[in-house]
């Protein structure tokens, strides 16, 4: 049986909730394991994720068919690699609509790709009602809500150092 490769889709309907941070953490974590890796930054306005890993993460605009082809066809073609997608909040609905329409989930399964949707949770009521907007994909067993806990804000470098010493 062929080894399964992972596809992580980091998504949220809202900006500034920590999508790119989580995507970066995933990339860093996967890099340590030494597995073949690729990432896609789907935020055409602010491709921060791609900027962090210039040779590993590619900016893609899925607003048009050409962009959709360069994303989904490449994921399926590179099915031996672990893939991390940072899904910009503005393309949330479109991404899942296209994914459902082209039958990506089924094809991915056939190519031993295991998709995992990491949905960043927040307090907005709309987040709890994601199901209809993403074609039911978010409610599938492979979706996983993630809560980003705020980092403690440090008042000064000294308090930061003290905290580090205490936590070591």
């Amino acid at each position, binding site marked *: 049986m062929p080894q399964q490769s992972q596809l992580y889709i980091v998504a949220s309907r809202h900006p500034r909730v920590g999508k790119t941070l989580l995507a970066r953490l995933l990339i860093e974590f996967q890099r340590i394991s030494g597995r073949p890796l690729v990432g896609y930054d789907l935020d055409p306005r602010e491709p921060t994720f791609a900027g962090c890993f210039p040779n590993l993460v590619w900016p893609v605009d899925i607003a048009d*068919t050409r962009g*959709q*082809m360069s994303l*989904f*066809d490449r994921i399926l073609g590179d099915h031996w690699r672990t893939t991390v997608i940072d899904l910009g909040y503005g393309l949330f609905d479109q991404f899942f609509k296209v994914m459902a*329409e082209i*039958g990506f989930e089924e094809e991915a399964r056939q190519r031993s790709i295991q998709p995992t949707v990491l949905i960043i949770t927040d307090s907005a009521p709309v987040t709890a009602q994601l199901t209809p907007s993403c074609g039911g994909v978010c*409610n599938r*067993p492979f979706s996983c809500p993630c809560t980003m806990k705020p980092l403690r804000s440090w008042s000064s470098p000294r308090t930061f150092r003290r905290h580090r010493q205490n936590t070591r």
Partner: protein
Amino acid sequence: MAKPALILVGADKGGVGKTTVARTLLDYFTAHHVPTRAFDTETPKGTLKRFHRDVSEVVDATAVADQMRIIDTLSTTDATVTVVDVRAGLMSPTLHALRDIGFLEAVKKGQITFVVFHILGSSIASLNEIEETAPFTADAEYFLVKNFINNTNFFEWDQATHASYFKKLKDAVVIEIPKLNEMAYEQVELASVPFLTFVANKDGKNETANYSFVLRGYVRHWLGNVWAEYDRVKLLDLFGAAAETTPARAGRRQILGSLATSLAWFRVESFFTASGESDLEKFAISFYCRSSRIG
């Protein structure tokens, strides 16, 4: 034995999607194992033939010899259904010819099943064709096909105009062909294969091709929607072949449906014996997804 059936796909106006609709029909019948042959009246080169080489031949609908090739062989051919893709401008002359040779009379007597797919464009000229065609389709199954492939809206924004055309014929049934992604459409054009073959990622020689998965996905989704329209109007029921295929399919669906329900309930029971109530919500979601997929 099933009655011979003739499907005329046409319009006097050009560029409204006649061949596209004819292609979806041929794919539909192929998928439902209905023996079908097709005639492409785009003489001499042919358009439909480029996609469906095996089942179609190019004819000149204005030539008596070719009219004989289509009509006189209806009852002797192995094909249950004959599809004629009538080229632009030939719809009215073809209907006149069918009346003159007594074909429409045979339809009236119930000897032949006659189906007309009238493809409509968004222009008034195209809609005016409905009135011109009506006298010839009284005994036919008449489908008005709104082809949204070029994003038209058929004057739906003006209810009076829309109603004046579409509500006039009480027996006419409207079929809507949704829009297909432009790139996907062009890629199938380039490939010159039936939509079904494209979806299956095969080339004209039935060898594995390298079409984009995204484009194939768009075509599959679109074709599914078109076929849903054909199912809605019970197209297969119009032909004798449908009497064999449809109940068999219905029977299979019923068996699969009850099997799926049993399996789902077996999962419910297994779940409750294996886990506690705290996982109920998680299970409810996965059960819903699985059962809707089965359905």
